[in-house]
């Protein structure tokens, strides 16, 4: 079996695990759907984006998609990798002839599939109930921003996995970061309502750019929403995350094997 086929099999294996894991299913698919429903029930009227009036339904569909990307690519992946490390699984894999990257690729592959499936679900719900107008431009922008966002937050997860000592702390960081950044980045509350200093902080981090890019794709008619700043910042954070991960990633839990 060559390595690409092995990586594909390992990814399918990871997805089979996902399909059996009720907690993961609720957390990554049902929870965002509930958020979408809640925000749209609370904020019914129009909102503003880039100085124009836009339907809140479409705005929140784009926003919740960016939140899902963070939650799954960053939060779930970080928690899964650190848990596997704590259980000794990463070490176990390293003791087999399988190249270690295949395990990481399979976990990222699982993440990609889960994110795109959830995004598809949210877009369908948005199109039916929340004034999302599905066009070719939207789909192009959506697919690209989701890809950029997933790459960025997966690389953040790999970077943080090297820093977090325990799976407990790692599992807390994911949802914490996703939620706080969402408030700073115009995800839960539209950017035009936020004080400038909050947005200034938000703009440093990748979520703001994933969110704004997606919101542009959803809300600007006749545009894919792709723009140099948002794409550039996401790519830069991805590269930074990979750099940190390549230097710090640990396959064994800290303090293991000193005897």
């Amino acid at each position, binding site marked *: 079996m060559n390595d690409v086929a092995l990586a594909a099999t390992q990814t399918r*294996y990871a997805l089979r695990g996902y399909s059996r*894991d009720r907690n993961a299913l609720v957390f990554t698919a049902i929870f965002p759907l509930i958020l979408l429903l809640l925000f749209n029930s609370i904020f019914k009227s129009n909102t503003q984006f880039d100085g124009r009036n836009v339907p809140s339904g479409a705005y929140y569909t784009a926003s919740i998609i960016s939140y899902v990307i963070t939650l799954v690519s960053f939060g779930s992946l970080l928690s899964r990798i650190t848990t596997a490390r704590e259980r000794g*699984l990463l070490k176990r894999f390293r003791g*087999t002839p399988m190249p270690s990257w295949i395990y990481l690729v399979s976990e990222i592959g699982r993440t990609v599939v889960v994110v795109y499936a959830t995004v598809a679900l949210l877009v369908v719900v948005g199109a039916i109930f929340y004034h999302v107008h599905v066009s070719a431009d939207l789909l192009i922008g959506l697919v690209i921003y989701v890809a950029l966002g997933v790459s960025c937050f997966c690389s953040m997860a790999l970077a943080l996995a090297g820093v977090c000592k325990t799976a407990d702390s790692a599992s807390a960081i994911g949802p914490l970061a996703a939620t706080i950044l969402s408030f700073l980045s115009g995800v839960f509350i539209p950017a035009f309502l936020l004080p400038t200093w909050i947005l200034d902080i938000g703009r440093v981090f990748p979520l703001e750019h994933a969110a704004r890019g997606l919101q542009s794709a959803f809300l600007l008619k006749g545009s894919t929403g792709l723009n140099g700043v948002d794409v550039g910042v996401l790519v830069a954070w991805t590269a930074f995350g990979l750099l940190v991960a390549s230097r710090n990633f640990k396959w064994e839990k800290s303090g*293991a*094997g000193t*005897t």
Partner: protein
Amino acid sequence: MAAVVEVEDLHKSYGQVERLHGISFQVQAGEILGFLGVNGAGKTTTIEILEGYRPRDGGRVSVLGIDPARANRQWRNRIGLVLQECELDPIYTVRETVSMFARYFEDPTDVQATIDSVGLNEKSDERIGRLSGGQKRRLDVALGLVGDPEVLFLDEPTTGLDPVARRDMWSMIEGLRSAGKTIFLTTHYMDEAEHLADRIIILRAGVIAAQGTPEELAASLGYHTEITFEPSVGFDLERLRTVLGAAVTLEASVVRFKTNRVQDDMAVLLEWAQGERVVLDKLQAIRPSLDDVFVQVAGAATAEEGAQP
């Protein structure tokens, strides 16, 4: 017989603390080597260096002719590991897990045959989360075997198991012996090593304190037969010490001393008892079991160094 594992003057330190002080040994093909020591003696450090997980600071190490520090994929195909701590994902079944691991190896054994060989055939479709501790441990062994390795590293395979699960594990490992596998087994149970191993090495605080077949160990270290009795009346302890020329102790009305000339000392003792009119109640000469040997040889490490976490 060729040596599968060769270790010469192996050194390893963690920070300022030297953990292995230059140990040397070999494991021959088809042999089960029992590597014994208390926690902190350096067992896991040694096995992890042999498994290619940990770099060494000095000495020469070769496993199947390759230096584990330069472990490559081909070499990993030829060795099997059963790690001390590895909690598999509870969401998959036994068969799924073993078949997934089989895919990592170039030339794996039959998945079902491997599951059968560790006695989990009835649990093939059970999720790992529903297995008992002993069954999980046997699954670990199956994962170590599925690549059809030439040498198997078993790191404390029965630690934490109940006595029945332990016996099951033993008979499983005996099955591997008849299959001709070379096995490097670490344990802190002497009875386990005595039962399973062809040869035993006792590690104490990073040095080899004793080695040999179980019989050789008993012969070379088991010389301190202990003689005990309860005297019927009071007597002069100092005089008995002089008569016997041994460190006789009296504690809780039990007199005891150690000797390696049982017959001679017993004669002297009986003669003394006759003369002093002392009745030797519950007179016994106890030959130490291998377990006692282990405590004698390896136990000192605990007192000297303190157990490591």
